[in-house]
């Protein structure tokens, strides 16, 4: 599953740490999310999308 987290994070000038604090997770989780190495729960996906002011569909792209 691809995502646009890094792109949108850069758009709002947020560091990985800033985004992690906003979402309430550890920085490593954001790192692995950006590298497409971790599939978040629906709840986490929603929180990240809300923090980046987009919908889940706009943030994540399921390839399969």
């Amino acid at each position, binding site marked *: 599953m691809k995502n646009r987290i890094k792109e949108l994070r850069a758009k709002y000038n947020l560091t990985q740490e800033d985004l992690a604090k906003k979402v309430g*997770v*550890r*920085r*490593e*989780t954001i790192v692995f999310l950006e590298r497409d190495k*971790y*599939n978040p*729960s629906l709840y*986490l996906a929603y929180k990240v999308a809300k923090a980046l002011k987009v919908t889940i569909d706009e943030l994540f792209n399921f390839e399969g």
Partner: protein
Amino acid sequence: MGKNKIRLILIAVLTLTLLGGIALYGLAIIPEKELNPGDMLGIFIPLLLVVFMTFLILRRYKDIKQGMPLEDERSRKVIIQAAAKSFYVSLYWLLCISFFESFFANKLFGLEHLDAGQTVGGGIAGMAVAFSIFWIYYDRKGKLI
């Protein structure tokens, strides 16, 4: 005091208790006799765990200072997967100890048979090592179920 800080203090206390136990065990056996491989493992493996836990505590302390949570959904999944895998490994490890009990007794302690304490200690040490290795692997690898 925050919940995270309390948890970190508890982990630090446990680590210090383990270190104290290692020190007492070392002080008790080192002067009395020449150490056999089993005695050295009995000191080395818990010491390795203390080093691992100290590293973890320092990292988590830095995270608390920066306002990061101690755990999140991903870190919980890492623990669950590491625990599940180490459970399977430990089943085979315990079978291995029971099948090769005389071999371990002879090579590690110079005895004919292991006593209950040595067997249980060996089993727990193997489980702890397996869990630590799997925890590091899943934490770095990223891909989780």
